[in-house]
C-alpha cells in the first residue's frame, strides 16, 4: 500500500495544474460533527482531478491520504474514516 501511495503521489509531483472555475454550495452545517470540512476537501480534490485529466493515475487510498494531510495542515487532525466514507459511500447511500 505504501509503495502504491508513494508512486501515485510522486508521479503527480511537478505536473502543472490547470486552473478551474467553481461554485461551492453546501447544506452541511459547519461545526455540527457532520464532517463538512472533509466534504469540502474531498470535493475540491475531486474537482482538481476532473479539471486535470492529464494527471497520472493516483491510487485512491493515496488520494484519501492526501486529503487527510490537507486537513491536517489546516489544523484538523483526523483519521482516514471520513475520507474513505466520502469517497466510497456516494454510490450506496
Amino acid at each position: 500500500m505504501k509503495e502504491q501511495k508513494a508512486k501515485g503521489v510522486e508521479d503527480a509531483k511537478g505536473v502543472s495544474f490547470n486552473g478551474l472555475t467553481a461554485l461551492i454550495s453546501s447544506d452541511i452545517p459547519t461545526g455540527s460533527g457532520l464532517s463538512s470540512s472533509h466534504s469540502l476537501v474531498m470535493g475540491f480534490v475531486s474537482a482538481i482531478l476532473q479539471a486535470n485529466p492529464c494527471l497520472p493515475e493516483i491510487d485512491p487510498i493515496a488520494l484519501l491520504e492526501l486529503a487527510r494531510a490537507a486537513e491536517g495542515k489546516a489544523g484538523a487532525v483526523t483519521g482516514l474514516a471520513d475520507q474513505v466514507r466520502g469517497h466510497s459511500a456516494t454510490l450506496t447511500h
Partner: protein
Amino acid sequence: MDKGTPVLASRLPATEWLALFKSRSPRAVAALEAIYGSPTRQASELEQKLRSEILEGRLEKYIASLESFNKEFPALQQEEVVISTLGLRTTEMRTYILIECVVRCPARVNMRGMHIDSHGGGCNALAVSLETLFVVHPSSIDNKKPQLFTIKNANRSFAELSFDMSDPPALPAGYVT
C-alpha cells in the same frame, strides 16, 4: 435512456440540465436515483415517502447550485455540464472529456464518536443526504491565466477565493508544513 451509458456522464448545456431538473423529467430523476437510491418493490410506504423527500430535496439543491453558478459566472452558463459523483472519478470518469461538471461529497455521522479513528478507535460511519456540491468548469475563467483558480460560494458569507498556481500565494500564518 440508453442503460449502457452512465447516466451521470451525460453532457448537456447547463440550461438543459436545469430544465430537466425543474420539470422533474424521468431522466433527471433517474440520474439522482442512481446516486441516492430508489425504493425497491418491497419498500414500505414510509421508506417510499422518505426517499421521495430526499430526492425532491436533492433536486432543489442541484437546481439552486446550477442557478447560483450561472448567476456568478454568466459567461459560462451555456457550457455543457456533466453531473458526476465522487466515487466514479478514479475509474470511469477518466475516459470522458469533461467540459464542466458537478462534484458532490456527502456528510456523515459516526455512531461511535468523532475522529476516534485517528487514535486507533473503530468507526461505523455512514453517509447522510446532506452534502457539498461543486459546480465546476474545469478551466480558468481567464484565458491568459490557465492556472487560475476562481472559487465562489453560494453562501455569500464566505469570501471569493482566487489564486494563480503559476504564482502561488504565500501560505497563511499558522499553516503546518
